[in-house]
């Protein structure tokens, strides 16, 4: 029988607004791949950050290889052979791979200087042993997300970790890269490493893990052996009720072309071409889904369409009006609403109240504004009261800072504001990212309502199942191009998944 390498007992962790871990017991045995699953905010990352010494527990005990350890800082964890690949990469973009890897544990030459040569050699050695091919001299900012993740893993191995914590490592990978990652994980396991693997994708749990711990609301609600369970059972565990993720979609009337994009080309923030000639149309009454692995130009496409990024080439015509490189305000004036992918960065002013956030974008014109630039406060609170009720925003207090709302309710604020504009075209980007199941259902319902009212919707999501269930038509994006158009009713997820990796190209059939 294998050793119990990690044992966390009665762990409690409180944050000012929530109890993130509530009397959690969690144990892992050596040499296993142990999946940790649960909804957003269930407390998975918190638990792992405690194990890595980043957070300090408010109560409980941690035993590593049977010995109680006070994990007061990551250094202690590293000493104990624990390594962590974070959900948000902890890499320093302007540094090289080698610099990132050796940071904090630099090989020295003459007791003073960094020994670059040795660092490079060490990394090459690790690369070879685990199949993690990488150029040690490359700068992080020039690497793809998948390669960056490799660096994270090498960082951990370089420190001699025996226990690897991987927080949602697959969320940002292409299916291809996921496969590569799994191969690496298998080879790590063969070398005797223990892996704790956090994911939202139950398929992956099935594929790679030996054991599963399920968390809900800060508590552990189940520990099961992977081969003795099913995806359905895990889902039930996670949510606490039977889940029906099927969306009820009514019929709709396809109408005029609302938006026409032609040969769009644009550069990324770093000045590299990311849109390489994208063309499509959206008609009234349809939901056009854009599927693709993140980082293939979807973000830039949405920004270009909403005026947040300039195009190098191409044209955008909205309801017969040219809006190429128009300002966000002009595009909004032409009847476009936008649910942005990053609600913290774009969608909300976190230090503004709910009611103030509910006027962002139409704060400058009547009826919100009166004469002499004066704001119409009566109107603003009326608007807030209305939307809070209609969109069930909780708590129903318009004066709260929006930052104090839960992610799901923050997203509802954005959806409420954008839909209250009565747009012709709704551009929804990752509309349900990081929100709980209740809110997901609600937002899906609202998007479908727009479609039934004869509005056009452009839906961009990394969640293939979301795109599949909502869209009338799906465009697949890969490396800044549209590589195919499919009918979700007639296509299997696997097929689209394959297209997302660029494996198959399909000529857009509808044109």
């Amino acid at each position, binding site marked *: 029988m294998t050793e119990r390498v990690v044992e966390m007992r009665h762990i409690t962790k*409180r944050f*000012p607004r929530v*109890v993130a871990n509530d009397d959690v017991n969690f144990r892992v045995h050596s040499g296993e791949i142990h999946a940790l699953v649960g909804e957003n905010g269930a407390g998975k990352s918190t638990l792992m950050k405690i194990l890595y010494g980043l957070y300090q527990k408010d109560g409980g005990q941690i035993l590593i290889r049977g010995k109680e350890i006070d994990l007061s800082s990551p250094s202690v964890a590293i000493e104990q052979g624990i390594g962590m690949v974070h959900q948000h990469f902890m890499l320093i973009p302007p540094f090289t791979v080698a610099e990132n890897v050796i940071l904090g544990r630099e090989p020295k030459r003459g007791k003073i200087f960094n020994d670059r040569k040795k660092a490079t050699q060490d990394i090459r050695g690790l690369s070879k042993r685990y199949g993690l091919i990488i150029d040690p001299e490359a700068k992080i900012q020039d690497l793809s997300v998948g390669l960056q993740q490799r660096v994270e893993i090498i960082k951990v191995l370089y420190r001699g970790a025996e226990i690897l914590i991987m927080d949602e490592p697959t969320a940002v990978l292409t299916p291809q890269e996921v496969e590569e990652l799994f191969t690496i994980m298998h080879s790590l396991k063969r070398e005797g490493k223990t892996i704790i693997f956090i994911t939202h994708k139950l398929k992956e749990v099935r594929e790679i893990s030996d054991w599963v711990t399920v968390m809900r609301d800060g508590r552990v609600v189940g520990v099961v052996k992977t081969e003795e369970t099913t995806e359905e059972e895990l889902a039930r565990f996670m949510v606490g009720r039977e889940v029906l993720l099927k969306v009820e979609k009514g019929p709709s009337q396809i109408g005029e072309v609302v938006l026409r994009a032609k040969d769009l080309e644009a550069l990324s923030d770093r000045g590299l071409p990311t849109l390489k000639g994208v063309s499509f149309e959206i008609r009234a009454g349809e939901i056009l889904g854009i599927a693709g692995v993140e980082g293939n130009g979807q973000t830039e496409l949405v920004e270009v369409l909403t005026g*947040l990024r300039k195009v190098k080439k191409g044209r955008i015509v909205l309801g017969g009006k040219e809006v190429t490189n128009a*300002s*966000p305000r002009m595009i909004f004036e032409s009847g476009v609403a936008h649910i942005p992918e990053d609600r913290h960065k*774009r969608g909300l002013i976190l230090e503004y109240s709910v009611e103030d956030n509910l006027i962002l974008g139409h*704060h400058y014109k009547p009826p919100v504004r009166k004469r002499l630039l004066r*704001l119409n406060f009566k109107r603003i609170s009326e608007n807030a009261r209305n939307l809070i009720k209609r969109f069930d925003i909780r708590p129903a207090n318009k004066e709260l800072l929006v930052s104090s709302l839960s992610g799901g309710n923050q997203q509802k604020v954005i959806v409420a504001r954008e839909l209250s504009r009565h747009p012709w075209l709704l551009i929804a980007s990752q509309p349900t990212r990081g929100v709980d199941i209740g809110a997901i259902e609600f937002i899906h319902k609202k998007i479908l309502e727009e479609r039934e009212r004869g509005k056009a919707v452009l839906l961009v999501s990394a969640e293939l199942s979301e795109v599949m269930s909502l869209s009338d038509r799906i465009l697949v994006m890969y490396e800044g191009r549209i590589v195919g158009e499919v009918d979700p009713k007639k296509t299997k997820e696997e097929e689209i998944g394959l297209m997302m990796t660029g494996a198959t190209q399909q000529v857009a059939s509808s044109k």
Partner: protein
Amino acid sequence: MIKREKLLEIFTPLLAVIAAFLVGGIFILIIGQNPIFIYGKLFSGTLGNPYGIAQVLFKATPLIFTGLAVAFAFRAGLFNIGCEGQLYIGSFLAAYLGFTLVGLPGFLLIPLCILGGMVGGALWAGIPGILKAKRGAHEVITTIMMNFIALALTNYLIVRYFHMPETVHTQSIALVARIPRLSTIFPKFSGSPLNYSFFLALLACFIVYYILWKTSLGYELRAVGLSPSASEYGGINIPKSVILTMAISGALAGLVGVNYVMGYKYYFEQGFAGGVGFMGIAVALLGRNTPIGVILAALLFGLLSFGGLIINAYVPKELVEILQAIVIIFVIASSKPFRDYIMKLKKKTLAQGIAGTSKE
């Protein structure tokens, strides 16, 4: 609990100020004086008689303008370190209009001169604004550089063209352009140059409050200050609001000239401001970047500044500069322990079980 937070927020700076005075007391002891005696002098000399009060208000007036300028820019996410330069250019322009347009009647000339001060400041602040908006040059450095350039430029104008013989000031502005002193209606204030620009300063505070919190423009500027990317998403033109913010901030700084040129000396004098622009940064911060706070902080600094003169006979007046620095340091350093304390309170209430129900 909300109440306790509010109370704490008011009392923390107050405690910091008191603590700063205690530390200042140590300096007084070091030079062998009695802190109680010195502080007694300081307060009785400033607040103990009408003239002292008037002097404190007079000293506070320019600080309100510059503090307001810094606070306004800060609210919109910009750091205006260049008030000093802006106020010189603004004041010069105000004076220039005042002594060239001598034929005009007062009801025209006074507003024109005030406008001149604002325009001068706005132009000088607008340059860093444009450099930031168009070229991404950091305003902290550019405004500092603009200070040096403003000093050199006004010196050039004075020394080469506009100075009265043997002096470093311009000729006087027209009689009708002069702003009356308050001592004309409150004889008790006589001797103090306190003038109506003090009310202009209060009015400016109100207008800034109004713009920031009551208008769509203020909504936009504050939004840019809090989150440029969300503001861009919300259709706000960021470059435009950066330039506008700097211009308004500079215009506020330029109003210092109204107090000095139109209300006190009646001419522009090289180097008259003596660091009022830099002090504005401290005033703004101490006032938590709110107009009311700026007024209170300006009064405190005005008190210290005039008080320095009063205790000059007993202790080096630099004690006051040290005191001001300590006040700033204590006030900014105390906000973190204050936040921590609030967090702890919240966590404690959570632990007591009230929390379980509040989740989502």
